[in-house]
């Protein structure tokens, strides 16, 4: 793996340029861990069904000589952008001059991570950056940490509810070389504030891309957060996307992950419920075609009592695609009166598709109500018959039923422009055979 030498060189260059500070220390830490652990293989329980090491056969370039224009950005804007704060990332780096911040600085602060780590947010960054490594302690996560550079810090100020949502556009430039991006963000949703965050991913060009993302979110007392992830990239665009949300005050979090296209896509969605009375809703939808491989790992760690969580992940696997779901609920000894529900429903459409699912409950407290369920099956024959009997051709009937299957999740996207956008994407995705 000649990538290792490449990473070593890049890492040393980066450290030389910015040798001091919290972030440099973290990077050092990360690189040591990466050198020690390496890239996970299927022997690692958490990566049993996803062969991420194959992605490292490519010789990637990190953010070199890449430039994009406003035209490129215009092409990928999400609906409702006129009302949104738009953050543009190119090959993992936050590009301020292409980004638009519409909210006032009394509501929302957006800073390059390095700047935040030095200035008045020094302590906050030091306290919260890389907390995710306690949960994601594999080589992939360590690799991201080794290259924390050009990330972003977003702070929703105490008591503020910015009317403009935040959109993050991740652009990977694979026009010349295979591109590797390792964006890192830290989001702080302060007390009694509100944030709506959406992320989307686009690869330019035809070469392979690999987006190894880590986003850490801290949600404080009385705060409210919605998080949407829309993955509809090229078939050779790969991704390991780790979202680590810590609810450290009694708060509400609602997330929806939509995966339509991509190469190998791995989503880690971690929720650490570190305050009594937290409420969390996780939704996910994966509609896979071609050779796509989507792996959704969720973790809900209940540390404190009286938390409620609900998870619903649904998926359809067609062609030679593979869908993986691994949902883990942990209830620690203090977390009495936890209510945790999880459901995973899958439809297999092709002889050559695979679905692997593994719901996990680990419970160390007694006064809890936890349940999980999962199903793998086909379209309901009676429903098909009903539609066909009414003169609807088989193909259309199938699309109709699949759309209905997906609707449970799509309906969870609260902002209207995004919901109809996703719903349209899904229709197109299903209708094109």
């Amino acid at each position, binding site marked *: 793996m000649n990538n290792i030498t490449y990473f070593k060189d890049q890492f040393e260059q980066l450290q030389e340029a910015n040798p001091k500070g919290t972030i440099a220390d973290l990077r050092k830490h990360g690189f040591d861990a990466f050198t020690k652990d390496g890239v996970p293989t299927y022997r690692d329980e958490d990566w049993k069904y996803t062969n991420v090491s194959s992605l490292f056969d490519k010789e990637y370039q990190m953010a070199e000589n890449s430039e994009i224009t406003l035209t490129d950005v215009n092409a990928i804007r999400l609906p409702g952008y006129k009302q949104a704060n738009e953050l543009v990332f190119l090959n993992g780096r936050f590009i301020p001059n292409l980004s638009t911040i519409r909210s006032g600085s009394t509501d929302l602060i957006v800073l390059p991570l390095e700047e935040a780590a030095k200035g008045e947010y020094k302590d906050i960054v030091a306290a919260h950056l890389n907390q995710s490594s306690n949960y994601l302690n594999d080589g992939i996560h360590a690799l991201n940490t080794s290259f924390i550079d050009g990330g972003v810090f977003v702070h929703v100020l105490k008591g503020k509810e910015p009317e403009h949502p935040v959109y993050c556009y991740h652009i990977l430039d694979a026009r010349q070389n295979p591109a590797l991006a390792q964006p890192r963000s830290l989001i702080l949703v302060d007390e009694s504030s509100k944030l709506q965050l959406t992320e989307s991913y686009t690869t330019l060009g035809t070469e392979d891309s690999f987006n190894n993302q880590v986003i850490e979110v801290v949600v404080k007392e009385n705060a409210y957060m919605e998080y949407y992830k829309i993955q509809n990239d090229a078939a050779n665009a790969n991704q390991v996307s780790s979202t680590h949300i810590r609810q450290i005050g009694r708060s509400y979090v609602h997330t929806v992950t939509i995966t339509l296209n991509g190469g190998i896509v791995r989503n880690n969605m971690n929720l650490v419920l570190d305050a009594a009375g937290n409420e969390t809703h996780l939704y996910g939808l994966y509609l896979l075609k071609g050779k796509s491989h989507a792996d959704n790992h969720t973790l809900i760690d209940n540390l404190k009592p009286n938390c409620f969580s609900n998870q619903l992940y649904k998926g359809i696997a067609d062609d030679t695609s593979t869908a993986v779901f691994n949902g883990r609920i942990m209830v620690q000894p203090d977390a009495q009166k936890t209510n945790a529900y999880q459901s995973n429903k899958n439809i297999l459409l092709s*002889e050559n598709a695979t*679905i692997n699912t593994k719901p996990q409950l680990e419970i160390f407290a007694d006064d809890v109500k936890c349940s999980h369920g999962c199903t793998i099956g086909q379209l309901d024959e009676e429903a098909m018959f009903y539609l066909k009997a009414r003169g609807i051709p088989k193909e259309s009937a199938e699309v109709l039923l699949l759309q209905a299957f997906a609707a449970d999740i799509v309906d969870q996207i609260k902002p209207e422009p995004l919901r109809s956008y996703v719903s349209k994407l899904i229709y197109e995705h299903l209708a094109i055979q």
Partner: protein
Amino acid sequence: MKEKPDTLEQAVLTEYKYGFVTDIDTDVIAKGLSENTIRLISSKKNEPEWMLDWRLKAYNHWLKLEEPKWSNVKYPIINYQDIIYYAAPKPKKQLNSLDEADPELLATFEKLGISLNEQKRLTGVAVDVVMDSVSIATSFKEQLSEIGVIFCSISEAIQLHPELVKKYLGSVVPMTDNYFAALNSAVFTDGSFCFIPKGVRCPMELSTYFRINTENAGQFERTLIIAEDESYVSYLEGCTAPMRDENQLHAAVVELVAHTKAEIKYSTVQNWYPGDKNGLGGIYNFVTKRGMCKGDHSKISWTQVETGSAITWKYPSVILKGDHSIGEFYSVAFTNNHQQADTGTKMIHLGKNTRSRIVSKGISAGHSQNSYRGLVRASKQATNARNYSQCDSLLLGDKCGAHTFPYIEVKNKTAIVEHEATTSKIGEDQLFYCKQRGIDAETAVALIVNGFAKEVMNQLPMEFAVEAQKLLAISMEGSVG
């Protein structure tokens, strides 16, 4: 639930009822494991050359393996050189009937409540008793042999039916299968062998009773059951061990082979010594159990009630190879004090129209950890495979844990797989209902737990079900409050 601290305290102190040591002369070899140990075991058992070769091959493979670490149990490192690999009660002569057995031994079984004589008379169960490592007596052998059923110890089978043993031994659980299976293949000392010929419906329940008696002895028994076309057998297995401070190792292998239209029903009541209330001592129970539905329309059903052992680590599995074959797994695992159980099943669907059903009930109390770990795999050629799994956990106390790790892998678009799991504590309203009717807390909990486990208990043969229910009640004593 705290109104009767005295009785509860007493109940907590209830000791392991089967913790007595039988004072019988035992033929024991020195501790330790090496090629010589294996040669010694083999020669003591007067085994043919091929058997010794097989053992040595397994031993050499075992040396290359590492002890698996993935399970959800914690235990100190096992020193495999500190175990006695062969302990046989003396005198070791062939017995034709129970009357010839050592009276001391018979008394042991009487204490266990599994009086052979009684069982013989009342239920007509044929029992193969395995103490430490060697099969003591097999009752009803003659009656069985009249209809062609072979039921004997595996050592006897090696002597008398080598062609059958050669053909089937290791065919379901190869010696290379896993660490403990390899160890067992190398050093197994006895176990049961059962062969049901074509078209025979075994007229009685076959039963084995295992007991570890010698200190520091490991028990490595090997069971092989073969059901030929259109035959049926129901097999019971019970286990106990006396109370010991040290941990004893039990690494058994059970292989079942069901041919076309054959059915094997395998029931286990496992009550090895679980260790005392501080987690001292107890049996490490690392067992590999697997059945192969080889022929079409065959059926294998595992039922287990696990109340004992400091550590239980076993996954009775079914490979559904024949078309239309059926695999079933019913389990109640109860853990108390510092017991740890990591148990479940694997259902591997290979044939068409195969069906499997998993019902697992875990009950944890005290400081115990109880995990369900299961795999359901529908392979590409398993058209119309159908699985339903249900795993429920009940928590009695706030220091225990209940975990579920189901793996589901589906590669066929006509397969339908369902899994559901719940974890909760005993409902306050259910308890209230009972208490209101004058039933005290402990009895009420026992009642509710029995109801919780009923779906599995119903699968057990009648006389076993009664015993299992009693066992559950004993294990549960002191866990309420």
